[in-house]
């Protein structure tokens, strides 16, 4: 542990900021997440969710500020942070030209799973993810839901204390989404894994997340339990209403960006994140 970075929170984000040229993608974010929480990040496209996750997973160095994850500083000890986290990117990250088993083997080796435990852990993880029968098929032939389950299973071989899932259910059919969420709940219940999840499906965020943060223009505009946020809006409000109330109108009226700004922002997003 980094002795200087004492915090009782599993994740302690302090004034985290990232600039891309003139664009401030993440702007002074402060946030704490506790052990075993499923924490949802919601917000419109380009609000900074992915950039925030990239900094927390040490893929992207912050412009200023930092975060302490399981006692390790993302700026000063990124390698120690990486030993304690797992990351399922928004993009498909399993290798389609390898089999499910080969993907798992690659992860196990990269994550330093001891040689004599690899086979057993891979077998268990594949069984748990319901992929045992397709372990030796090429991932290129898997369905979207199977690939997601494999990717999550790949992240679990080293038993991370924190798991980052960037839109884990994007592009999946309802039953595949359900299965992925059950995999997530299973992890929390059995291993007290802390999870940061982004999603555009407000219904599943509402149903499965303990707390959520709404992000607009790189800032956190609301944090709380889904029920708390809903009651602030009205008696029968849904999370969709919360989203539209807090974000939808702001996004439309507050900043009328020029075409050039949007083009720069999108290009920055494509090149940097």
């Amino acid at each position, binding site marked *: 542990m980094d002795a200087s970075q004492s915090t009782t929170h599993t994740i302690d984000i302090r004034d985290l900021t990232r600039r891309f040229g003139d664009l401030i993608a993440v702007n002074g974010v402060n946030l704490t997440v506790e052990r075993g929480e499923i924490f949802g990040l919601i917000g419109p496209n380009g609000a900074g969710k992915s950039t925030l996750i990239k900094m927390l997973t040490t893929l992207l160095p912050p412009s200023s500020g930092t975060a302490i994850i399981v006692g390790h500083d993302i700026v000063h000890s990124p390698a*120690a942070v990486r030993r304690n986290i797992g990351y399922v990117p928004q993009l498909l990250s399993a290798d389609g030209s390898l089999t499910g088993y080969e993907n798992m083997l690659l992860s196990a080796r*990269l*994550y330093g799973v001891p040689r004599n*435990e690899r086979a057993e852990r891979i077998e268990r993880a594949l069984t748990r993810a319901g992929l045992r029968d397709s372990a030796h098929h090429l991932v290129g032939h898997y369905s979207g839901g199977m690939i997601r389950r494999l990717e999550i299973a790949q992240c679990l071989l080293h*038993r991370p204390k924190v798991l980052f899932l960037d839109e884990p259910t994007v592009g999946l059919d309802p039953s595949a989404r359900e299965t992925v969420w059950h995999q997530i709940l299973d992890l929390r219940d059995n*291993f007290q894994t802390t999870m940061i999840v982004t999603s555009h499906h407000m219904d599943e965020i509402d149903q499965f997340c303990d707390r959520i943060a709404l992000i607009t223009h790189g800032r956190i505009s609301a944090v709380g339990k889904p029920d708390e946020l809903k009651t602030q809006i009205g008696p029968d409000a849904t999370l969709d209403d919360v989203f539209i109330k807090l974000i939808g109108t702001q996004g439309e009226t507050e900043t009328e960006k020029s075409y050039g700004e949007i083009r720069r922002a999108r290009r920055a997003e494509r090149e940097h994140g």
Partner: protein
Amino acid sequence: MARSDARAAPNASTVERSLGQAVYDYATQVFAVAAAEVQKLYHDPIELFTRAIQPVLWLLLFGEVMAQVRGVSPGNVRYLDFLSAGILAQSVLFVAIFYGISAIWERDLGVLQRHLVSPAPRSALVAGKALSASVRALSQALIVYLLALLLNVGVDLSPFKIVGAIAVIGVGSALFSTFSLIIACIVKTRERFMGIGQVLTMPIFFASNAIYPLSLMPAWLRMVSHVNPLTYQVDALRALMLVGGTSDYGLAADFAVLVAVTLGLLAIAAKMYARMGY
């Protein structure tokens, strides 16, 4: 299950790891990346055969015609023999110099980001990539060797020479694939990479001793060739591949140049690889 996992996954940062364990973990991580490459080749070997076409054309078409030109090969060496070592180096170069595009491809997919979030040091990932390129290059080299034998080139098949050739091909392709990876880290898109790859391949190939001796070159081009690592790779391969082949600079010098440049490039690539995660 939870109990055994707690034992199996101690918080690595709180445990003093022995140096031996660290070296073992590092080697495992390098090997993991290369093993995945071998598995991919095993699943889809077609690429190996299509890649064999180019060296065939160079040896059969270019080689047969150029062999008629007097003075193009030094001393009393047969031109096809002279050329075959150059074509071996060239086919390895062509595989390696476009190798960086696979990293861009993996970045677009998201595979690369996952590797970057693993505890594996960036240098291990980059070294794994270099080793992967060497594996590909060796499969290519096998084809050129077989082809040379068919064309009655005086191929030296003594075990010592073969092992030496494998080492030169391995280091040479690690060198150029790492160079390619550095370019990939800078340009980040396939379109830009293809343009630059084409621009680089020709000068590296022609400003070397691959298809004609340096003695035929004007002085300025000879100077360029002397700082071109491919020249040293070809020089070593001429000595190792051919019966009675000799090296102009000495095998030790060739190896020293290739290894030193490769290590330098690996160090740069390890620094730059993190940028692929942005």
